[in-house]
């Protein structure tokens, strides 16, 4: 099932001043693979994700996504980002636009669709996340779970090759988490390649092909969820999993 790598990140280093956030991380993701990244806060997992579409500029390293060198100066980063969908912890919907407007904006301005075509595609993207009836609602009129689904629709409407999720459910009330995970599962079943930074361990167990455990800017351990959760090899992962159970 796993085929050629669609993300190939090698020896990624990232420092903020004297602070080393990423210390030589490799991440290779195959097409249609779902990779989960877990780790304590400050372990560098979000930074790694943000390096993949160059929201964060790595200090050194190589990143190739879908055959394109992400860090090369001649790369049209905007064209590349269109193929890398990203979903944020805090949704980041545009508050001055309706749900439809949020999804349609990049379709018009980046893909170059005419208003009617963009809105048609935006509507079908909203329908896919179960929000067809909320097209004309403003973000403030939506629940957190609905906002995050609009954000997913905004990314998915561009038909990306990869989707990056940065703690997509961390800002949600517990009862709203399920609706977002359902949409992510649907995406997964549709064959989307996904890299997910999250603490939703049950989702990881059920859906992930591979789990990476990061700590201190390094990948400490990785493998299929059953191995990683069932038989953690490192002390740090054992300690981390114990700390999660306590919650």
């Amino acid at each position, binding site marked *: 099932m796993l085929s050629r790598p669609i993300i190939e990140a090698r020896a990624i280093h990232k420092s903020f001043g004297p602070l080393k956030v990423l210390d030589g991380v490799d991440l290779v993701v195959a097409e249609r693979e779902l990779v989960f990244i877990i780790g304590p806060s400050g372990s560098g997992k979000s930074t790694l994700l943000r390096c993949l579409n160059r929201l964060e500029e790595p200090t050194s390293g190589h990143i190739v996504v879908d055959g394109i060198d992400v860090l090369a100066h001649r790369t049209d980063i905007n064209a590349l980002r269109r193929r890398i*969908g990203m979903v944020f912890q805090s949704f*980041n919907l*545009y508050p001055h636009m309706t749900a439809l407007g949020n999804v349609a904006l*990049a379709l018009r*301005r980046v893909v170059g669709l005419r208003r009617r075509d963009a809105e048609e595609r935006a509507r079908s993207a909203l329908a896919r996340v179960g929000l067809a009836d909320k097209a004309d609602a403003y973000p403030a009129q939506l629940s957190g779970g609905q906002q995050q689904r609009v954000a997913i629709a905004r*990314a998915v409407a561009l038909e990306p090759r990869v989707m990056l999720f940065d703690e997509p459910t961390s800002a949600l009330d517990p009862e709203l988490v399920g609706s977002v995970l359902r949409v992510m599962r649907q995406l997964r079943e549709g064959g989307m390649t996904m890299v997910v930074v999250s603490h939703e361990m049950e989702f990881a167990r059920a859906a992930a092909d591979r789990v990476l455990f990061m700590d201190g800017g390094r990948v400490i351990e990785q493998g299929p969820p059953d191995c990683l959760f069932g038989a953690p090899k490192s002390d740090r992962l054992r300690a981390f999993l114990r700390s999660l159970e306590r919650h």
Partner: protein
Amino acid sequence: MSGWELFLFSFLNLRVIAEYLPSIAAGFLLTVQLAALIIASGLALGLLLAVLRSLGSLVLSFAIVLFVDLFRAIPPLVLIVLLYFGLPNLGFAPSGFVCTWVVLALVLAAFAEEIVWAGILSVPRGQWEAARSTGLGFFATLRCVVLPQALRLAIAPLTNRTIAITKGTALGSVVAVSEILAQASAGVSFSSNPSPLTLGALAYLVLFAPMVLLARRIERRFAWRR
């Protein structure tokens, strides 16, 4: 004459008012033109400067801050007089109208830049990141995502400032611009009666009351549903 009659004779003298109505009407039209020029060029320049500052170039930002602080610190009248009486020495003699326009437009631009810039800064970084992550470029993000939110916050202080600075057109009376105040003062001198000033005040009211109302409408339009 009783006190009331004296007041009416001095400030609401219909004969004097009728006599100077045409010249103050002419001053009104000139003031409208001057105000329109100041608002259009001042706001446009202020917006442009705020956009340039958002590019994050150190040199450019420093130059903009220098300009802004200078023009916010010096009283506009000083600048108008300096331009009007100073420039001819350099072989270039702009009219009082042009001097007033340029100075007030620059002062408005300086304040507008600060207000819009504060608005841009108040838009959370996540808005930039979300837009950029969908492939929108810097300027498209600024135009479609950041500025609409920034301007919504800026619109109230911006209209306040615009009205305050546009009222400075009265300063043009010092450099021979025949705007409302100059015409009214001339009327007062010629008729030895202050009624033309009352008429001038009315003319300012006619000019600025609609502006205040327009500002309120713009503020309402920019408020999206929360």
